[in-house]
């Protein structure tokens, strides 16, 4: 019998040929991935987290919940998203066949909505009337505001004041959707500070408020729950790859900020030992400059935002400000399951600089007519390095986690173009 938390993968998938083994079985009952994860929060949040976990455990087993989630994935999000063989790009790079998992084609333009749909359905069942969220690039904020609008729930989104400036378009989208966007002026005024502020809101309004965390971080059950909602990416990709290419892929590539799109792609392949999994972090100006967000490549274990994981912290344990051209990767922590996959050697983590990411951005745009988000461009840039080292009959699945429309201003500005 599979543990409960794996059955969701089974049920909502409607695919029988994918065999789930019981080899990989993380996290434990209190949310630990080896030494990582856990529940490191102030006492006031322990009871709401217990409630959330109880509700989650109950509804992932509930046929009505699964049916509603599946229907929303299909009719509202537009799933399944295509697995697209980028033939021209593959040929040009001269190595492995590159397949793009088109999460950019989802409603709202990124993978984020897979998770917000799931959590919002849970919020509704728990009788919560108010939704809060943190956001960096604004994609998670938009995806949250979207589902809140649809369900008629009040929505407050915390966003670092710096990000409010650099992602003005998404701020406007959230406001149109009826959300209140609160600029956070404390600390470095970016994603981590937005998360701090959302936690403060939650601790104050626990009775009526559901906190939709946007990535596979935070206290248990968030890392496992967000992963489970995002595994639709990998489950579809696996089925599609088998159908289209007749075999499993040889490598998976995805960008990692908090790591939700990566874990969503990786997870259903964890027990397939032949499939390499590569997470791509943001090296910003270069790891050697100190201005980067490559937490797994250059950080160290610590505790922040409710879980133990790799962090960017100094010798005194203070959190270091990070940098990336992509706001969505600009975070000093990473999901605890990635920390575990790194230490266990099951996944590899590499990094790509801002400049390299722009190279990936332009390559995909010009070769395939697909404009990727800056976050996803990091995965594209690494694919350009990896593909030529592989044989022509090998397959890479790259997660195209979001579309690039939101980044037009950033890229134009960087390249000295006035719009």
């Amino acid at each position, binding site marked *: 019998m599979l543990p409960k938390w794996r059955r969701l993968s089974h049920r909502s998938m409607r695919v029988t040929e994918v065999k789930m083994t019981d080899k990989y079985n993380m996290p434990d009952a209190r949310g630990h991935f080896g030494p990582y994860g856990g529940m490191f929060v102030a006492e006031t949040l322990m009871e709401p987290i217990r409630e959330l976990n109880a509700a989650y455990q109950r509804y992932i087993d509930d046929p009505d919940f699964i049916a509603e989630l599946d229907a929303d994935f299909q009719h509202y999000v537009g799933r399944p998203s295509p697995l697209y063989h980028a033939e021209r790009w593959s040929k040009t790079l001269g190595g492995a066949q590159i397949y793009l998992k088109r999460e950019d084609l989802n409603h709202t333009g990124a993978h984020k909505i897979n998770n917000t749909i799931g959590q919002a359905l849970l919020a509704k069942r728990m009788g919560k009337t108010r939704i809060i969220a943190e956001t960096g690039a604004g994609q998670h904020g938009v995806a949250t505001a979207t589902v809140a609008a649809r369900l008629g729930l009040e929505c407050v989104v915390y966003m670092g004041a710096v990000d409010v400036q650099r992602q003005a378009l998404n701020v406007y989208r959230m406001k149109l959707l009826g959300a209140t966007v609160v600029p956070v002026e404390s600390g470095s005024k970016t994603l981590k500070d937005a998360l701090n502020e959302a936690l403060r809101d939650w601790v104050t309004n626990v009775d009526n408020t559901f906190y939709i965390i946007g990535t596979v971080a935070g206290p248990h059950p968030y890392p496992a729950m967000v992963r489970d909602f995002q595994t639709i990416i990998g489950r579809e990709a696996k089925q599609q790859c088998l159908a289209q290419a007749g075999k499993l892929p040889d490598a998976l590539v995805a960008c990692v900020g908090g790591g939700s799109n990566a874990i969503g792609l990786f997870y259903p392949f964890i027990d397939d030992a032949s499939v390499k999994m590569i997470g791509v972090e943001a090296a910003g100006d270069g790891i050697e400059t100190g201005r980067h967000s490559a937490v797994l490549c250059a950080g160290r274990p610590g505790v*922040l935002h409710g879980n133990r994981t790799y962090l960017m912290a100094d010798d005194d344990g203070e959190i270091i400000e990070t940098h990336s051209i992509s706001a969505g990767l600009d975070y000093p922590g990473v999901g605890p399951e990635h920390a575990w996959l790194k230490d266990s050697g099951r996944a590899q983590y590499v990094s790509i600089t801002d400049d390299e990411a722009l190279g990936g951005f332009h390559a995909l745009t010009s070769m395939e007519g697909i404009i990727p988000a800056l976050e996803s461009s990091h995965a594209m840039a690494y694919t350009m390095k990896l593909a030529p080292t592989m044989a022509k009959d090998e397959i890479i699945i790259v997660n195209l986690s979001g579309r690039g429309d939101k980044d037009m201003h950033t890229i134009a500005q960087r390249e000295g173009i006035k719009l």
Partner: protein
Amino acid sequence: MSRLAAKFAELKQNNRKALIPFVTVGDPNPEFTVPMLHAMVAAGADILELGVPFSDPMADGPVIQRASERALAHKMSLRKVLALAAEFRETDKTTPLVLMGYLNPVEMMGYQAFADAAHKADIDGVLTVDLPPEESVECVAMLKEKGIDQIFLLAPNSTDERIQKMDAVGSGYLYYVSLKGVTGAGHLNTADVEEKLAQIRKNTALPVGVGFGVKDAQTAKTVAAIADGVVVGSALISKIEANLDNPQKAKEEIVELLTSMRTAMDS
């Protein structure tokens, strides 16, 4: 018997309640802290909570957040907090000192190194906001070995089961957070606190300090009537923030506020 246990026993014998001020160490500057601590003891403080500044104080309201930022601007750190605590101890061997902060600085130092360093600085208790009992087994054991109490928070939504858990692993005292929210927020509701304290006492014999929302002599007196200790933090730090150009004045105002609290609590 630990200094904290002895202090609460002594207070009980004299039918008094503990006045427990909190200040962020190094705010507004590192030179301010040790004289301030001595002055607070002279004004009637029984136990001192030393806030260890952290870059991401998730459970704190804006007043203590800004205090952390000011202290960090002076490169304050857990190591330096311990050094200042040791300096305080040179002339005060009796007042219990409790470190209050977040887990990450402790994680970076390592639990054993931290327990050793805290012992060397003669620290009596440690309250780590984001370390619930479930995750604390290792840390508590190492502190206990050095005779240091681990103090846990209780909240309005803590169940009987959780209070019993705190009772089993915690020592020194328990800190009841009187409202759902962050430090410095709102006003405490005496009737609610009284009701919750009755539930807490059914589940533990440890002394209970109450904080969050203690702003003036009147709230201190009200809380003292039902709790074993009164914790005051943001109200003191507001005095520092209001007098950043004149720390001496901040010190005087803090002493004045604590003195009025002491008087009200004892009357």
